[in-house]
């Protein structure tokens, strides 16, 4: 089995013992809370900034460009410069808007992505909250962000925003189904909803390999549906640039806009992390059958690297989608879901159930 050299639980355990030696149990819990909070806050902000940078570079390379290259080496701190600029921008209140909902909306989208971040197993022993219904929880929380988008569009008293928000609503409620069903297919394989449990069940092979073709199909469906759920191209109808200028966040300026932007990228990270965890083995290294030497070498790569590598691969694929395809129209978007993805995923689950029943998976 996998080696334990990079087990983060030993590290966290050591910190816990060290803290316990210093103060009373109540304070220990408090300090740990603060520490975890700080770590996540930092990770969240840095990841968001990095993802924006990565997106700009990826699309630049796909379009025969260089991308940002002025601020810092290879433009690496470009996004930080952008963040400072956004912080310094005026926050414009919109006439006749609903100020309470208008200001609430960025909170909701950020809270949703933050809550989802909590349940993802980043590495062996590195997971903030290990729910026994982890998959379910992440799905539920991440789909809540539509409320934020709807509020943003509705409250800004702009016609473009409202159209964008309504589109986003119709889109997310539809694609939520396919996301759920495609994740369900792996739950049937793994027999658990706990994210760490799903990762453990892939110790001897990732589900996308073990699960035969149905797993591949549900992986593709998950990719498509989750791309739609996070409002990214080709499903970015909510902010369809050429039609609605900026869709639901047309009226937001400065840092409030930045939060919608950040939330979009963090949602992309979250769905990619879920895809990596559920289909691609999470932090489990790549093992091939009985190649002992190969498996040994793979084990020496730290689990967090595995996780990040897989996640970024999925992120890259999602970016690849965005920079290749034209945008769908709202009715085609719904047709795709209800007439293609949903029936296929229903059929796929029966297939998987049959495979599991016959014990054909490894």
């Amino acid at each position: 089995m996998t080696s334990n050299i990079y087990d983060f639980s030993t590290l966290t355990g050591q910190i816990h013992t060290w803290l316990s030696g210093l103060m009373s149990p109540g304070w220990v819990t408090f300090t740990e809370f603060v520490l975890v909070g700080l770590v996540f806050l930092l990770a969240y902000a840095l990841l968001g900034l990095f993802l924006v940078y990565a997106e700009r570079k990826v699309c630049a390379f796909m379009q025969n460009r260089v991308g940002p290259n002025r601020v810092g080496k290879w433009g690496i701190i470009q996004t930080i410069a952008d963040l400072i600029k956004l912080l310094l921008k005026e926050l414009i209140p919109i006439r006749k808007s609903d100020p309470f909902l208008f200001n609430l909306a960025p909170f909701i989208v950020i809270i949703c992505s933050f809550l989802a971040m909590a349940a993802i197993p980043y590495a062996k022993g590195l997971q903030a909250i290990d729910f026994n219904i982890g998959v379910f929880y992440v799905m539920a929380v991440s789909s809540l962000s539509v409320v934020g988008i709807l509020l943003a569009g509705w409250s800004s008293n702009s016609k473009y925003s409202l159209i964008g928000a309504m589109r986003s609503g119709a889109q997310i409620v539809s694609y939520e189904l396919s996301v759920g069903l495609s994740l369900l297919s792996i739950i049937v394989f793994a027999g658990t909803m706990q994210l760490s449990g799903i990762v453990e069940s892939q110790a001897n092979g990732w589900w996308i390999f073990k699960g035969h073709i149905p797993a591949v199909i549900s992986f593709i469906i998950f990719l498509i549906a989750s791309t739609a759920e996070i409002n990214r191209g080709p499903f970015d109808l909510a902010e369809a640039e050429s039609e609605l200028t900026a869709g639901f966040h047309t009226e937001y300026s400065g840092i409030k806009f930045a939060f919608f932007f950040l939330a979009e990228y963090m949602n992309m990270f979250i769905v990619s992390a879920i895809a990596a965890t559920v289909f691609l083995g999470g932090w489990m290294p790549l093992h091939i059958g009985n190649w002992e030497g190969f498996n040994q070498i793979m084990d020496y790569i730290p689990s967090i690297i595995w996780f990040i590598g897989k996640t970024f691969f999925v992120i890259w694929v999602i970016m690849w989608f965005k920079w290749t395809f034209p945008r769908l129209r709202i009715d085609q978007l719904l047709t795709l879901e209800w007439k293609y993805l949903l029936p296929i995923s229903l059929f796929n689950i029966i297939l998987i159930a049959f495979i599991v029943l016959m014990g054909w998976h490894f």
Partner: protein
Amino acid sequence: MSEEIIKDVIIGENEEYIVNMGPQHPSTHGVLRLEVCLKGETVKYLIPHIGYIHRGIEKMTEALTYPQIIHLTDRMDYLSAHINNEAVCLVVEDAMQIEVPERVKYIRTILDELNRLASHQLWWSAFGMDLGALTTFFYGLRDREYILDIFEESFGSRLLHSFVMPGGLMHDIHPNFQKRTKEFITYFRKKLPEYDQLLTGNVIFHNRSKGIGYMSKETAIGYGVTGPSGRGSGFSCDIRKIAPYGAYDKVQFNEILETEGDTFARYQVRMREMWESLNIIEQLIDNIPEGDYTAKMKPIIKLPAGEYFRRVETARGELAVYVVSDGNKSPYRMRFRTPNFSNLFVMNEIAKGCKIADLIAISGSLDLVIPDIDR
């Protein structure tokens, strides 16, 4: 629930939603304002409002000499600047009955086609972007750069090159012109299939463009929709065939016609025209005759009194120049019948009942250049 019942259930059936698209909108390619009445997401009707960059070119011409007018026409359809210039030249040459040298005709025709290619490339880029395929923009512009470099080498300017003069050209083409044009043809022949793979074949693109914005042949003729937009409806309106000018009567080429009349047909016409333009250039580029680059002209050009009318095919359709001269060195009245002016107003007719997203696709497929409408 049958379809009728669902219709009854529709709340807000009478709710009309007036949305202004433009003048500051990413998809109108300039300062065009479309007042769109929506029901849900369906367009009920739309009213185009123009005039945001009306510069009164027709009035200005009344105070300028003919060579000076030529460089004004650049600013109408700036994407087919050379063809616009040529239109005025042809009128002047017609009126003064000047026979321009063969070499000039050949070069003008090559430049026409290069300009058409550059224009279609930019249209392809922008059309892809209208539909949300953002990468097309960069590929199209990347390839357009080749043509612009050729232009820059010969004329010294990239977009608005007042290269033609009544009776000929400003100066001879650059010695590298033929070589670089041939290089471009081989290069672009390789890139065009990529365009097809990226956008033309794409299933999302098909769904977004097929059957959208249907324009019948009668509508096209009635509204005077010419150029690739009209030919997408089967309206045979290619001036290069009807009234050949330049060296068009010396080359073999087909008038591209599609009969479907939808956005995809208009798209296909332009894509096929790019191939056809490459063919035309290829036929001419090696056969440019030697000779003078301009005919003998008097220093001051005065048209004999009378009325002159000449049509050329720009990248967007039929540009007609109508000159009323009273024998002076500037025209008494000059009228430009620009293609986009007619092409725009068919939009209300063909966009009724489609979605907002389709409206963008339709306006993209008509390939509007706003300064050409406003003049």
